[in-house]
């Protein structure tokens, strides 16, 4: 029969690999436990949009408009008015000490200006030493303040006209109006966690055989490079599928991430992504000579993936060369797909190009791995 591929031989390799996986309890536990741990840890810990930040209020009047404004700011969740400053100097001091992240000043003539239809002003001073801290709080401000004013005046149309210009902080935060960063982070985490475990596990697939001396025997027996590759890669595809289910379930249960798009489209994309990852890991293992080298190569790849894929920093904020570099990382394309499908409800046509990229990666990695595979011990 065919000497290049036989299901019986592939079966032999698969069964062997699954038994080894089962015996290696620690690794197996790691493959399922670590993703969950990372998801919970990062999901809860990483927050680019911190809330309930300490703020000081400088208000000399206690008219209804001022009160309405303060309560409106408070209900955004960003401001926690735990300091009331009597003067601008006192507020300044609080901020310089780092006691507050914001100082909100509502001038004494605020109410009068609102009534007169003049441009009312409020001053928000933000501690911008960490820009990420303030951005969310500032960006919601315009909307909230306007709405508060409208409600307080009860004269919606006129007020809308008069209030324009001053409090106009136009922010368009589509898909995630509340700015919950977990919506952004958790789907991204799925990609990162998959990348980490899948690539690392498969990157030692061949080097482990070489280091344990079993490679010589495996090569001396009739198994083709394609069979060996599939025998190594498919079991981890199954592990990846289990991870996906775990992480998606946790995303739903722990973080209440909305699943707007098609589940089958998402799962298809995840499957292709995982396939690309395990093949990448396998390619690494055809290059590395030792398990140590394989792990180093994995991390070599891992760091830029985290930094430049749009997981950690906004993709569009990067310089052009970095964006180009990001394009050659499977994670970049996967993040676009999963965010589009999960959060925006994108359909296939919208993500077809990105899925196409993942398919290209699969073909590329498989090709390189097969070419690189050493059939002999030379």
């Amino acid at each position, binding site marked *: 029969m065919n000497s290049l591929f036989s299901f019986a031989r592939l079966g032999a390799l698969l069964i062997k690999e699954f038994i080894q996986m089962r015996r290696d309890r620690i690794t197996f536990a790691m493959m399922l436990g670590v993703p969950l741990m990372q998801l919970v840890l990062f999901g809860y810990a990483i927050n680019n949009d911190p809330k309930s930040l300490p703020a000081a209020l400088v208000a000399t009047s206690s008219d209804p408009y001022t009160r309405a404004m303060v309560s409106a700011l408070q209900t955004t969740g960003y401001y926690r008015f735990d300091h009331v400053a009597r003067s601008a100097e006192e507020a300044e001091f609080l901020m310089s000490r780092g006691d507050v992240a914001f100082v909100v000043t509502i001038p004494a003539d605020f109410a009068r200006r609102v009534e007169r239809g003049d441009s009312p002003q409020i001053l928000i001073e933000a501690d911008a030493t960490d820009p990420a801290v303030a951005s969310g709080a500032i960006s919601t401000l315009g909307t909230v303040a306007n709405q508060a004013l409208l409600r307080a005046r009860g004269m919606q149309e006129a007020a809308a006209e008069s209030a324009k210009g001053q409090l106009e902080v136009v922010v368009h935060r589509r898909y995630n109006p509340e700015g919950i960063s977990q919506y952004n982070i958790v789907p991204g985490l799925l990609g990162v966690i998959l990348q980490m475990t899948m690539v690392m596990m498969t990157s030692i697939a061949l080097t482990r055989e070489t280091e344990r001396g079993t490679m010589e025997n495996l090569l001396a027996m*009739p198994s083709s490079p394609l069979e060996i590759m599939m025998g190594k890669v498919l079991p981890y595809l199954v592990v990846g599928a289990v991870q996906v289910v775990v992480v998606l379930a946790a995303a739903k249960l722990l973080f209440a991430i909305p699943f707007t798009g098609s589940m089958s489209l998402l799962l298809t994309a995840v499957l292709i992504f995982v396939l690309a990852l395990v093949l990448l890991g396998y390619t690494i293992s055809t290059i590395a000579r030792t398990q140590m080298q394989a792990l180093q190569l994995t991390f070599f790849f891992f760091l830029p993936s985290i930094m430049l894929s749009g997981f950690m920093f906004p993709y569009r904020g990067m310089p052009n060369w970095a964006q180009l570099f990001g394009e050659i990382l499977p994670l970049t394309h996967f993040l676009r797909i999963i965010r589009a499908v999960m959060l925006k409800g994108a359909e296939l046509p919208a993500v077809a190009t990105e899925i196409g990229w993942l398919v290209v990666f699969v073909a590329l990695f498989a090709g390189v791995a097969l070419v690189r595979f050493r059939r002999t011990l030379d």
Partner: protein
Amino acid sequence: MNAIDVHGLVKRFGDKTVVDHVTMTVAEGEIVGFLGPNGSGKTTTIRIMCGLLTPDEGEGTVLGFDIRTDSLSIKREVGYMTQKFSFYEDLTIGENLEFVARLYRLKPVEDHVARTLEELGLTTRRNQLAGTLSGGWKQRLALAACIMHKPKLLLLDEPTAGVDPKARREFWDEIHRLASGGLTVLVSTHYMDEAERCHRISYISYGKMLATGTVDEVVKNAGLTTFVLQGPRLDQVAEALQGRPGVDQVAPFGATLHVVGSDRKALEKALSDIEKKHKGVTVAPGETSLEDVFIQFMSGSKDNMA
């Protein structure tokens, strides 16, 4: 047709020629011992024969298949037992055998595994992890695995290193039983007693084939003369003989001293005054052993791994 028929094999690693124009033929059903010091190129030669390494020069056939172009066919018909245990230590004996049976597409798997376990007396240890086996049992498992698909040729690379004498004896009985069934065996070894259990031996050193033939032929062709000295205080005699022209080896064997030289006349001259100088010591011509021949070979060539 010869089971192994290779000519002028050369294999270099960097600037080291590990196998240097090795030519070898092994007839079907023969047990050939492959001898030589560490680093002499035995393992490399065997790996070339089973398709694990491509030779830089030379060609040949194994079981009629070209070693350069048809290594997959060779792999199907050859059983190769590696020097280091190379089955999966985290799989049980049974699982390892099942793995091998499936790779060779033996059907039904269970029958082949059960038969192999039975034949080698491993049935009771079927569910034991291979990694927990002792050296002797590991070797039995490795042998079991590489004869399961009924190969026509067995290539064994130092199969009995680190195995106790009883297990070694049983191993060789097994090899002879298999050979009588028509199996051809090429086995590399360091042990002289094992060499003497082979139909023929080949001696390789520094990548070069130095001698080949039956044990008697190799000993005879080496052209060594051996004298056996007996008597009191042989240690003093040994000291006196060291370095004398004509004396190549002085080695105590139990209560006797073997003195070996390649030049019979020079050796006789060197020994001529021993009986006079050392009272009670007798000098008599003796049989040159295979070990004497090998030690002579070894001292005549440098270690390749140095």
